[in-house]
Every structure is written in structure tokens, then in C-alpha cells.
């Protein structure tokens, strides 16, 4: 069996996940990464993304929205501002948010609205990705 490491996912309101896992996939500001045990130490800033936990052939998905991740050889700490399991996500709402954000981006408004729309799109995609 492959090496395992401790994964902690915490949000301000609760301990979201804690356990031994084989691999975790998530997206940082620099791109998507997969983390196995004995990864080099790394501190990175999380983007809104679908986080995937691989645990003994079983996969769990969750949506996380922003935060930081600290990778140490034997453990990974994810400090997310919001984290949701698929059954906590309202699919229709996420879909509507995605359409709204896409329209806003298509209309080419400038400045802060654009950034906001892009973030909203990322969040809705993270949610939808977790549900699929």
C-alpha cells in the first residue's frame, strides 16, 4: 500500500476533514497540484477549487473557496475560508451563479467587477465540480 499522510482541512466554523489519505488534489494560485506523502515543504495560497481526497481507492470531493495550504512531509494543513461537501451544495444556485458570472465576463466590464465576476465563476465551478 502506498504511503499515507495526515490531512487536516479546517474552516473558521468547523473541523472539516481529518484523516489519513493517499493523495490530495487542489488548486493554488500557480496551478493545480496533487500531493502525495513526502512532498517537499510548501506553503501556497489556495484558489477556489474542487478539492479531491484519495483515500484507499475511495475518492471524496469537496469545494473549497480560498485559503492557504501548508505542506509538510508527514502532514498537509488546509486552512480554507469556506469548505463544502457535495451534499451541502445547492446545484441550481451554483449553476445560476456560473451563468451570471459568465454573462458578466462576456459583457467586458472593467476594473473590480471583472475580478469579482471571475472569482464568482471560479467559486461556482468549484461547487459544480464537487457535485459531479
Amino acid at each position, binding site marked *: 500500500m502506498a504511503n499515507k499522510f495526515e490531512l487536516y482541512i479546517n474552516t473558521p466554523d468547523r473541523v472539516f476533514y481529518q484523516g489519513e489519505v493517499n493523495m490530495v488534489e487542489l488548486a493554488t*494560485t500557480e496551478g493545480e497540484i496533487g500531493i502525495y506523502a513526502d512532498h517537499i515543504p510548501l*506553503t*501556497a*495560497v489556495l484558489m477556489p477549487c474542487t478539492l479531491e481526497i484519495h483515500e484507499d481507492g475511495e475518492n471524496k470531493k469537496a469545494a473549497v473557496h480560498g485559503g492557504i495550504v*501548508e505542506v509538510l*512531509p508527514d502532514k498537509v*494543513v488546509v*486552512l480554507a475560508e469556506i469548505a463544502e461537501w457535495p451534499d451541502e451544495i445547492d446545484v441550481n444556485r451554483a449553476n445560476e451563479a456560473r451563468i451570471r458570472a459568465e454573462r458578466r465576463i462576456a459583457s467586458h466590464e472593467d476594473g473590480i467587477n471583472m475580478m469579482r465576476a471571475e472569482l464568482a465563476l471560479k467559486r461556482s465551478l468549484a461547487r459544480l465540480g464537487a457535485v459531479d
Partner: protein
Amino acid sequence: MASMRDIKRRRDSIQSTGQITKAMKLVSTVKLQKAKGKAENTRPYSDLMYSTVCNILAKSDNVDHKYLRASESKKKAIIVITANRGLAGGYNSNITKLITDNPEISKDDAVIFAVGRKGKELLERKGYKIAADYSEVINEPMYTDAREICDEVLKLFSEGEIGEIHLAYTSFKNTVVHNPKLIQLLPVDPDISSDADDDIPMNYEPNEEEALDMIIPKYMCSLIYGALIESVASENGARMQAMDNATSNAEEMIADLSLKFNRARQGAITQELTEIIGGANAIE
């Protein structure tokens, strides 16, 4: 000796006060249970965030970052977390005392960001400058509230309006122990020692500076949120204790007054009897 009627009136009034304090104690107990659960859920996040940031700072000693440098401005922003309501023993005044009795904080340099009406009123009366009032927040603190406060003070800090950011709150140890605390948020104390005894070099994504740019506001946010949640728990704990004391004081007074009342009644009966006997003797 006071008349029977006076004693009875006094006893009744204390009894109804006792009923109120008892009810308030029960309400606080329920609220405390809720707030305590919330505080326990939040603590791992704040603790991990704190140790992560300590780790980062310990492993990058020579980073020159705007959040780590002492600013030229002498002004100090203080986020003061108190309650909106009183009747909680020394809960509110303990926090304000932290500020008024601190020799390092002068009245002219302090800029208060008040969370909780009681603290705001107490400090306003003493002549401190209140920059903002977030009293609504303390009823039901949310993470977005913490972020709002955080953004506001960080903006002032990066504009150079203020040189230091402090946070005054009541930390919640357990139901009976809560300590008022004043901590410095920014600039982050570079001497924070880390428990990590390993010397693994840390990698950053993106680079160190940009990572700190994003991590430090999150770190502050989580500390402020943790402080809000713990303060709510402490407030209810303090009120529960205060009301418990008030109820037992009321019971003591009632017992004392009951004794006095019974004595007065017995005295009145004895007096009446002697009068009747005296009257009967006079007739014979």
C-alpha cells in the same frame, strides 16, 4: 424594629429580583453552551493559522515586508471587543481597563475600533477617539464581519495612517476562567518563536512576499474571528457567574428578612397577648 409591612414589602421585591436574575442565569447558560461549542470549533483553525504563520516567519527571518516593518506613524489602532449589554460582572470594565491602565497607550494616539456598545461608551466617556463602531456584529459574529473589520484596519495601516494594530478581547479558557487579553496584530512580532525544531527549508507559491501579502490578512482575519467568538462565550460565562452570585445573594437576603419578619410577627403576637392579659387583669 421595622414594621411587619415594611419587611414584607422588601422581601417581596428582593424575591422578584431574584427571579429575574435566576431567569437571566438560565438564559446565559443556554447561550454559553452554544457559544462554547462554536468557540471549540473555531479554535483549531485559529491555532493552526497561528502556528503556520509563526512557522513561516521563523523560517524566513530576513524578509522585508510591509506588514512586518514598524511604521512611522505613532497612532495605534485598537480593536476592542466587549458586549452590547451589561450585567456581566467585570466583563466590560476589565477590557477597557486593559486600555486605560496601559502606560504604552496614550489617549491621543489611540484609535478605537469598537465592537460592543458597552466598551465604546466607557471609552468615549474617557475621551478616547472612536473611529468605527461595529456593535451589531457581537450579537452573532460571522467570518465576513471579521473580514470587514480586518480590511478596514489594514487599509489604514497600508496608507500609513496607523502604525500598530492591537486587539483587546476576552479569551475563553473554560466556563469559569476567562482572561482579558491585549495582543499586537501588526506589525507581526518577528520574535515569535516557533515550536518547529526542524530546519526544513520552506518553499512558497507564489514567491515569499506575495504569499505573505495574502496570508497575513487571512491570519489577522482568523485571529479577529477567533477573538469575536471567544468573547461571546466569555460574555455569557461572565453573565452566568454574575447572575448566579446575584441569585444566591438574593436568597441570603430573603432568608435574613424572613427571620426578621417572623420575629416581628412573634413580637406583635406577644405584645397583643400581654395587652389582652393586662386588660383582663384590670377588669377583675
